[in-house]
């Protein structure tokens, strides 16, 4: 049994699965249920100065597939709408009752030092394990000068981090918004400000859908809608990239990362950890399935680590990061070809039609009695992978690298590159 214990910014937890600051971590009732279900840690839903915010009715939007499986999710909820004192009292009690779990408190305030420091001082008294600065919420709060209104300006990120850093010795995580041109700018700013770690991504600005009867965006509040924060499986690729960008940027390479964004399975988590995240935070998957989904995440990760011979998370943490490179470093001499296993093929024809219509016309249909045989024409196949992605049968279409005997040669070395001389 692999050791799943995890540590970030000096905060330990029995496993790397935390619940992100969001509706599931709004109060003791939920958080206790989450701990009972096995979650390693929780980031308490963002606290703000009193009086608490008021939320609207109708808060969530969703992107569903044809069988109503959730692909993406968005929300227009604000930070906690409960009194600060009540939240602090519950946090104190929960931490006391669950000493082995990580309990981090998210907070948000105006661009004023006293507001931030005031909140920090009160949170310190709860015995919580750390702070997470919410500089990412992209809806509602940003219109009041908070959340992403701060997170989108690196100088403000640095300033807020400095204020908080100077006021407390609590571990300090800065949560970043993906709604920026370059994630490295706020990440570097957080580091300069003294953050112990960053967490990302917060939600992506979005309109979940348009109600074609109401002619209004969803979620709809009395006939109107507003942009909300997008999350769920659909944002995972965006999050993975931003985590990797921070991890391979020399200025931020040593900055611990709490990975967030579309994590719904042990495999998703393992991918974030492999790109250098120290732990992961989950929200949408719990909102879709309940807290019980941490069970399969824990034993799935453990089983995979056992199968791979990884005794601890550190044994594979960041293992994929070194293989994330600039396009210019890719080997131009590498060639891979699609191979279709005729025994696994069920004759759906999807590989053919997508290659024929949208790619390189490299999959021919040949008659073989009653059954069609799909044959890849190696000369025309560019190894794009499209066919293998649309094939409904796992392992039916695989990509086989060609043994062409050619050495590594990247674009900067490629004689076909017209700018090669200038670069060289």
């Amino acid at each position, binding site marked *: 049994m692999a050791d799943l214990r995890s540590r970030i910014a000096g905060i330990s937890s029995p496993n790397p699965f935390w619940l992100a600051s969001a509706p599931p971590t709004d109060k003791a009732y939920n958080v206790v249920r989450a701990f009972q279900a096995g979650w390693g840690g929780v980031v308490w839903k963002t606290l703000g100065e009193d009086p608490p915010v008021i939320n609207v009715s109708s808060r969530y939007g969703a992107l569903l*597939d*044809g*069988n*109503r499986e959730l692909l993406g999710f968005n929300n227009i909820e604000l930070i906690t709408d409960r009194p600060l004192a009540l939240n602090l009292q519950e946090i104190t009690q929960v931490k006391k009752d669950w000493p082995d779990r990580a309990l981090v408190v998210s907070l948000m305030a105006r661009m004023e030092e006293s507001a931030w420091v005031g909140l920090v001082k009160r949170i310190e008294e709860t015995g919580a394990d750390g702070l997470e600065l919410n500089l990412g919420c992209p809806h509602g709060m940003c219109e009041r000068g908070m959340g992403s209104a701060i997170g989108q300006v690196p100088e403000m990120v640095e300033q807020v981090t400095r204020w908080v850093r100077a006021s407390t010795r609590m571990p300090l995580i800065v949560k970043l918004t993906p709604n920026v041109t370059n994630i490295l700018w706020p990440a570097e700013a957080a580091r300069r400000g003294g953050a112990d770690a960053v967490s990302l991504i917060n939600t992506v600005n979005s309109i979940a859908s348009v109600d074609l009867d109401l002619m209004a965006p969803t979620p709809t509040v009395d006939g109107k809608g507003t942009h909300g924060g997008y999350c769920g499986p659909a944002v995972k690729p965006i999050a993975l990239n931003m985590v990797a960008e921070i991890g391979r940027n020399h200025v931020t390479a040593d900055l611990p990362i709490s990975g967030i964004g579309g994590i719904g399975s042990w495999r998703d988590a393992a991918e974030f950890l492999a790109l250098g995240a120290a732990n992961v935070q989950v929200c949408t998957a719990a909102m879709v399935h309940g807290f019980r989904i941490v069970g399969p995440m824990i034993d799935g990760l453990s089983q995979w680590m056992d199968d791979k011979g990884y005794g601890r998370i550190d044994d594979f943490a960041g293992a994929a990061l070194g293989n994330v490179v600039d396009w210019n470093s890719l080997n131009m001499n590498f060639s891979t070809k699609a191979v279709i296993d005729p025994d696994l093929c*069920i*004759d*759906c*024809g*999807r590989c*053919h*039609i997508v290659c024929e219509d949208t790619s390189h016309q490299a999959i021919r249909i040949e008659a073989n009695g009653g059954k069609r045989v799909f044959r890849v024409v190696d000369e025309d196949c560019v190894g794009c992978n499209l066919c293998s992605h649309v094939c*409904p*049968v796992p392992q039916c279409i695989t990509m086989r690298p060609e043994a062409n005997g050619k050495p590594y040669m990247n674009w900067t070395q490629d004689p076909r590159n017209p700018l090669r001389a200038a670069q060289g």
Partner: protein
Amino acid sequence: MTAAAHNGPQGLDDDLVPPLNALQAMAESSRCLYCYDPACVNACPTGIDIPGFIHRINDGNVVGAAKTILSANIMGGTCARVCPTEILCEQACVRNAGEQRPVSIGRLQRFATDALMARGGGHPFARAPGSGKRVAVVGAGPSGLACAHRLSMLGHAVNIFEAKAKPGGLNEYGLAAYKMTGDFAQREVAFILGIGGIDIHYGKRLGDDLQLGALSGDYDAVFLAIGLAAGRPLGVEGSDLAGVMEALSFIEALRQGRAPAVAGRVVVIGGGNTAVDAAIQSHCLGAEDVVMAYRRGIAQMGATTWEQQLARISGVAIKPWLAPKRILGSGGKVTGVVFERTRLVDGRLQGTGTDVELSADLVLSAVGQELREGELAGIPVTEGRIGIDADYQTARPGVFAGGDCVKSGLDLTVQAVEDGKRAALAIDRFIRKGVSHGRSA
């Protein structure tokens, strides 16, 4: 639906395979892989764009789904109910590989076509500008109606002549009630006629009230869709006893609300789907014991495996290798049937010399149907069916034929519909000769 998951119809009007609700249709339609040029389409005699209509259901475009179906098969509603999908589209579904459970294409087709018909709001297809041409269609069954509908779409005026009092042919008179509940046959005909340009004249039987020669003279073309109207005789002693009847007459009576009183033991002679329909319905009507006796083996039965399983689940005993030899009676009423056991010897069916007697209060003969050749005014017949060329034209120019009265494929409703559709296109080309047309299927 598999027979294993079915208890058989619980009564005459029990919908054999109930309609999918919206939730079921969403789940089932999401199973379709949207294959390209797939085997299911090739397995459909009418070539319905199956992935196309299922994709539209999943898209929430049920009207588009229904129009996709009906543009290829105007009787998509009936075919959704009665097609032996287990030997056609669903047998070819790629979901059989891996899951051994095809997409329920028939039930999805019913979901879409029922939704369109329930919606009302006008016929979904428009007629081309009037051609000034007139076509006579003989027979208002699936083939005749499909032909008439397509001819009307193409701008021609159609007169249908029907021997019976109602339209629909076997849909109305010859299929099990549990497959066509809720007067569906008549509702579908009304829907088809909604295109306009089609008049039906009832009580007009070819050879009696109607002469082919006169029709040929009065119309630009004639389409014969007369089916196989005569029951093949059993040809054994005692066939004229009271309590011996043709299975199709039995089904017709019960479909028309004149269900015969059935009690005691019923012996159905034959191995096709009509035999199964009659056997199961006699059980529903109160028979204590129902036996289906077939002169060949299970593997040679015309009834599909699903129909056979349905019969067994419904309490019908299937007895193969029994050839009827003599029907027994007492006081002019049937009391039983003597069969001779048979076997295959070098591929030929032979009697074994051993007799088996089954007692019976009702004997239903379902040994096949035959063409009424006398109606045809000398049009050549080949192997019991009207001879046609690749354009569905008989030996007499301008006279076309399709449906069960020709041999174009399997003897199925869906084939009859395809015949009617293709014949209409051929007739259109024929009567527009010299006119630029360029239409094709």
